[in-house]
């Protein structure tokens, strides 16, 4: 299910090309985060940065919406209810997806970082992180992709 988020991108992206220098057709970012507050905040910052954002609360929801097919970058929480962010990444890799994935997690554990790296994550951000940091990491991921 794609959540409707009060979109600020019209003002932010319309006025200029945005901090990321996004073109007129914005990149689509898929965000999977189960925490409502954080999810809406991240949607807000990404949209302000000029991206189109599809956000989901669970991996299952994202898969069901086939969001990966539209995504140019996936920002995904590690610990999600039922299927984890890592499991989602494995499925996508198995399905042949090459979309860069940025993991975000509150668990700053070596095991998490190692697993994220082994799954070929573009980056792994430890919560709490600055909004601009996410925007920078997303831009880098899109650039390298």
């Amino acid at each position, binding site marked *: 299910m794609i959540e409707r988020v009060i979109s600020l991108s019209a*003002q932010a992206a319309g006025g200029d090309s945005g901090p990321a220098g996004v073109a007129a057709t914005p990149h689509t970012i898929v965000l999977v985060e189960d*925490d409502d*507050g954080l999810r809406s*905040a*991240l949607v807000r910052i990404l949209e302000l940065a000029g991206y189109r954002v599809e956000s989901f609360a669970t991996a299952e929801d994202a898969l069901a919406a086939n969001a990966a097919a539209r995504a140019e970058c996936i920002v995904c929480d590690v*610990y999600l209810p039922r299927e984890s962010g890592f499991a989602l990444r494995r499925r996508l890799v198995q399905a042949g997806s090459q979309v860069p994935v940025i993991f975000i997690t509150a668990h700053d554990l070596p095991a998490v970082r190692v697993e994220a790296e082994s799954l070929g994550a573009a980056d792994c951000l430890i919560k*709490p992180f600055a909004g601009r940091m996410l925007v920078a990491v997303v831009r880098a991921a899109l650039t390298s992709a």
Partner: protein
Amino acid sequence: MLLHRPKAGVAATVLAFLVAFALSPTAAFAQARDGVGEARRVVVLNGTDPYLPAFIAIDGALRVAVRAGHPGPTEFYAETLDMGRFPRTLLENDVLALLRKKYRGLKVDVVVAVETAALDFAQRHRAELWPGAAIVFHSVPPDALRARRLGPRTIGVPVRLEFGPTLELALKLKPAARRLAVVVGASEIDRRFESLARAAIERHAGRLEVEYVAGLPLADSLAAVRALPADAIVVYAAMFRDGAGVPLVPRDVLTRIAAASPVPVFGVFETYLGHGIAAGSIASYEAQGRRAGELVARLLNGEDPAAIGVQAPVAPGCIADWRQLRRWGIGEALLPENCALRFREVGAWEQYRWQILAVLAVILAQAALIAALLVQHARRRRAELALQRHRGELFHAARLATMGELTASIAHEVNQPLGAILANVDAADMLLESGNVPREALREILADVRRDDLRASEVIRRLRALLAKHETAHERLDINATTAEVLRLLAAEVRRRGVDVTTEFDPQLPAVLGDRVQLQQVVLNLIVNAMDAVADVTAGRRRVLVSTRLTPDGGVAVAVSDRGPGIAAERIEKLFESFFTTKPRGMGLGLSIARTIVEAHGGRIWAESDGRSGATLRFTLPGAEPAAEPVLVERPT
């Protein structure tokens, strides 16, 4: 006693009259006048006032002795000359005339002459008034006898007024005395006493400076006594009349003299004892009366007075007033041997020493017992408090340990809202940089920041509630809400572990009484244990069920079931023992503490497992009484 036979018709009335008459005081007199019976007559003739305490005492003893020594009927006639107050010359003829009239034709056997004046009167007028009567005198001093010629049939018991021995006794009791004041009145008798005292005191001349406070008005006598120096003593003789002519009762005067005196007062009369004298060489009135009475009885029995003769005086002896000795600080040790000590106030201690000691012993024993019990109680209370404190500390430490295992989840719970806040702040920043700032958008961001901040605070509040040290409380708790709060705290951990936790809460549960934090600690422990149990189960099948239900006895049961490998039968037994653990890093205290907490709440905790497919840990708690509601009492009508 003979009674006249009453005439017919008035028999009952006359009989009653005669009985009443026979019992009246005048009956004996009537009998005597009629010459009926064998009554002997005794006239007690008092020279002064027969109601003086001394004479009352002597007369009482005399009459007892007469009745004891002479079994036949005896009539006593009391007469007084009252010459203590009135001069002999003034009254004698009139008194004589009266007595002549009274005793005309009445045979008197014995005249008891009390005091010298009475003895003189009786001797002078016996032949006329009481012809043939014998005279028995008492209260007459030997000196007075020596100056008189006793007629035939006159015998008696002289009284020795011991001024000499009394003075010696006084000097023994107060050796430092250098002055002597002799207090005496102005009546004829007083003067006789004074001369007796002077004669005795002369023998001690030279040793003492003697002052006679004699014949003065009472007020002057009192003033003289009051002015005496500390090295004085007082000998009080008597004061029937003072220098102002006021008739007095000597004993009452003594009371005032003694009150005014700054030094001890001594005297020679027994009746002065108890009224202010410290001591004296005194002849007992009772003995004087008894001895005189015995003489009267012998005469009434027909003995010849010449054969009996004048008796030796009653031997005086030392008698002291214990209270006066105390007043003057005179030690009992100074008293001569065989001195009778009167009015000794036996203190409670002397009188009831053993009883008091026994009661004290009992009280002491009881006090000791009570003190021991109190000490024991205080110790037990301290031990209980220490145990409670240690338990509290143990519970707290265990909570810290459990929460330590959940650190990652806790950090996650706090970091989520913090992350949201950071992102929103950056968003606001970017909006501001864009120049065109829609106020509505900013307001939304601020609202989100506020909400996330509160969310972080709430997580911290829950943590603090669980982690802070606290006093054990007893409050009414909703066990469903208490359990749900634990699940909220564990939400991140549940997610992290990929466990599917479901709940089945019975909504119709009674409240329980207990400590919220401790009970949450139990639930937390059971759920973490259950999650541990399903850790090795394939992802997606890690299921834990938390349920509550009503017990048959109206209590509450909380169960945590897992789909783990189950618990072997031999382990179930040990599950709640301290330091029993199946976990590589566990201390084996969690379930032991859970059991302690549950049992302290009056509940029970146990495990159920078939050893293959999962386990259920269940605990029960008694339901609290319903909150105060009016109670209807049925009254019998």
